[in-house]
């Protein structure tokens, strides 16, 4: 763990979790920044096609998924604080609720994909749908991994005594989950809302 440094007002600064997870998080954010650029570029190339295809997406599904992930992040943040307070039962319950939200997100996505495919709107339909399926699909993969991470956090929080290393692991997993939430917030804005 990094050595805490002095911040302003006498508070100490500390890195939540292991350094390695932050290398991954920042790297992943960079990769997705490229994806975000591609979406804007895609729109610029053929605004009419983009707007028309976007019009077929369910903004309700997108907004619901956004609220699900935001809520799951709240549960995770509260769970981390509970872990630090050694309120293990509370922490596990919060991580479990977050996991449930994650599963609901995946469920909504599955229904959304199925609906589109049933209408013949597959990745082969046009560039919009290709990038929609690929980018949200890669994100969904992140969600799946995140659900496994949350399950691991629940197990870690079951240990009789949460040492500094355990807290660090929990913080690492939590940070990864917040990344998953953060990335979706932008994907939702660009695919579902952009004029």
């Amino acid at each position, binding site marked *: 763990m990094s050595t805490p440094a002095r911040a302003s007002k006498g508070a100490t600064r500390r*890195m*939540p979790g292991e350094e390695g997870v932050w290398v991954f998080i920042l790297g992943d954010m960079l990769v997705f920044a490229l994806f975000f*650029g591609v979406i804007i570029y895609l729109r*610029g190339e053929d605004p009419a096609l983009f707007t028309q295809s976007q019009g077929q997406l369910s*903004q309700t599904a997108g907004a619901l998924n956004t609220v699900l992930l935001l809520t799951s*992040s*709240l549960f995770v943040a509260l769970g981390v604080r509970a872990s630090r307070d050694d309120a293990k039962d509370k922490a596990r319950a919060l991580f479990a609720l977050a996991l449930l939200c994650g599963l609901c997100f995946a469920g909504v996505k599955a229904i959304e994909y199925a609906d589109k495919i049933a209408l013949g709107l597959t990745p082969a339909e046009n560039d919009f749908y290709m990038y929609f399926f690929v980018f949200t699909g890669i994100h969904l993969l992140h969600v799946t991994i995140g659900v496994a991470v949350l399950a691991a956090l629940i197990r870690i929080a079951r240990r009789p005594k949460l040492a500094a290393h355990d807290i660090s692991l929990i*913080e690492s997993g939590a940070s990864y989950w917040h990344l998953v*939430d*953060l990335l979706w917030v932008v994907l939702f804005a660009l695919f579902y809302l952009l004029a």
Partner: protein
Amino acid sequence: MTVVDSRKAVVVWLVLVVATFASWWVGADHALSADAAVTAAVIAVAFIKVRLIGIHFMELGTAPRVLRGMFEGYVVVVTIALFGLYVAL
């Protein structure tokens, strides 16, 4: 300290959810003129939300300056780059 933290987390969540519905409302109303203005608002709100998640949920607000700086830099650069790309094309 923990109770204050928890309350703050809930407030941040509320702001995030309200921002989500606000940008949904703005994004859904295609009668609004000036697409560029709507786009700017949608992108700006998205990255305000990203920053809130990073600073408060990811706790980058109390993280080492270098890490926080990289995150803040990312938010600013990507927001400007995406809007710049939108306007340029």
